[in-house]
């Protein structure tokens, strides 16, 4: 029974991490879908989102931090408001940043060689990492402990080895509605359809009167906003943020997007949750040091069998 409970425990951790990976993976996949650029700077946008959240939260509520740290678990109503402010701030900050990156580093290179925007993306990634170092230093910063870690399973009076904490629930409460809202926007609204039309055939989209520069900017805006949300949530979940987190999270998220089928929104969700759970299982049953091997080994295997990813369209289908 204990082994099954252990499995469930890893599943919970994997799911929460998987949803964070999904939020970042969506940014990769949306951008690739519309301009066929791997935005290598995306992970670093996420990192700066976490940094901006630290700054906002520290500025807003040093008091709340103290009370949680003092094991005073009584609910502090203002905390929710501050979290909401930090969430919105981080989303707006990262959305703006991502739109600026597109405008300055990619737009002019769009018609040129395919390598040019790729190199430019790597350059932007380095720039953002250095901005991160300049902002918060090289060593990881502690994230304010806003979310108390209460085991909800125990709180419900069930005696179990499995812990589902308020933190796990917090991750899902923020990420799931965002993913649903994004999906509805892209599937149902006129602008969402215009984004899909632009991704499928840019010239034809222009002939419909769609300003494709604007739909592309909108895509970067949405991807950036989700990365900003992920920055805050991951910081609160892991209690830490560092300038290199963009690289590690970015790599996992990019892998998730490719695994699911890059350019495909459902693929990013599937890939994100899958990678999250896979990593948690590898951490739990093998060793955390084996986890990258497991992740990339799986990626290789999937790509050998299905080169366009699990839900990716075949080239013939896309043409």
């Amino acid at each position, binding site marked *: 029974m204990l082994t099954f409970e252990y499995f469930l425990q890893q599943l919970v951790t994997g799911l929460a991490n998987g949803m964070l990976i999904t939020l970042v993976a969506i940014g990769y996949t949306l951008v690739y879908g519309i301009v066929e650029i791997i935005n290598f700077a995306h992970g670093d946008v996420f990192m700066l989102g976490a940094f901006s959240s630290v700054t906002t939260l520290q500025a807003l509520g040093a008091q709340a931090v103290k009370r949680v740290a003092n094991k005073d678990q009584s609910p502090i109503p203002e905390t929710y408001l501050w979290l909401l402010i930090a969430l919105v701030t981080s989303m707006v900050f990262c959305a703006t940043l991502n739109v600026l990156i597109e405008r300055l580093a990619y737009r002019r290179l769009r018609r040129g060689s395919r390598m040019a925007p790729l190199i430019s993306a790597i350059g932007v990634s380095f720039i953002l990492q250095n901005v991160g170092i300049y902002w918060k230093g090289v060593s990881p910063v502690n994230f304010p402990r806003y979310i108390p870690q209460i085991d909800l399973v125990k709180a419900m009076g069930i005696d179990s080895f499995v812990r589902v904490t308020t933190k796990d629930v917090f991750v899902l409460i923020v990420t799931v509605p965002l993913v649903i809202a994004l999906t509805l926007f892209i599937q149902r609204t006129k602008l969402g359809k215009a984004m899909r039309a632009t991704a*499928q055939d840019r010239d034809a989209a222009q*002939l*419909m*009167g769609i*300003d494709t520069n604007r739909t592309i900017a909108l895509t970067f805006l949405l991807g950036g906003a989700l990365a900003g949300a992920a920055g805050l949530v991951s910081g609160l979940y892991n209690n830490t943020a560092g300038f290199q987190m963009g690289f590690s999270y970015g790599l996992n998220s990019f892998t998730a997007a490719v695994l699911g089928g890059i350019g495909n929104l459902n693929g990013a969700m599937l890939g994100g949750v899958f990678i999250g759970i896979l990593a948690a299982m590898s951490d739990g049953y093998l060793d955390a040091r084996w986890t990258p091997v497991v992740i990339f080994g799986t990626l290789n295997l999937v790509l050998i069998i299905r080169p366009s990813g699990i839900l990716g369209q075949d080239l013939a289908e896309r043409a």
Partner: protein
Amino acid sequence: MSASASPARVIGSVVLEVTDVHTYYGNIHALQGVSISVREREIVTLLGSNGAGKSTTLKTISGLLRPRQGTVKLRGETLNNVPAHQIVRRGICQSPEGRHVFPRLSVDENLAMGAFIHNDTKQVAIDRERVLDLFPRLRERLRQKAGTLSGGEQQMLAIGRAMMGRPTVLLLDEPSMGLSPLLTDVIFDAIKEINHSGVTVVVVEQNAQLALSIADRGYVMQTGRIVLTDTADSLVKNEMVRKAYLGEE
């Protein structure tokens, strides 16, 4: 919108004027001084072999390509510096060569994209009904992904989608390409009907016979230049046209 019920067509004043246009693809001088004028409610056809510059001419009019020299004017207003997505709002809609429907959007969503520039939901619904009356086949396929349609159905969708933009000038690039004679007839009947409803049509065609059968006037292009222009009736009788494009010895 029925052809039989509409009054005799009255050709109006010049609506589209292309003057001495030079367009390049990189270093390739694709259009070398093309001049075309189209009058209201006319059907004008551009004929010529592959690579003559017919499609390039249409793309230059719709703004996908920019002329390096010369002007494109719609009702006297220069379009040279108007971006493609704004030219649609001025009333020029195009059904591109190779159809270019959005393959992973449904037929209905494709039509909705055709009406992207319009926000008056009621009129858009009326336009949609008109297009579906014009091409009843599309009505049966509304929820289907456009990429799964047959070539003929995709052509209907491409023209229907362009009609959703409420064009004053409709540009059609190779509407018969790859279609059976039967489907080609359906498409060309629809083009006539669209024209009878008051829309000016510029049609590029490989099938010169067919194009001249519905057109008022035609231009013959060779290597980026207009080499001949006349009424459709005279072009059908023209020696050079007969030899080069109507397959007669």
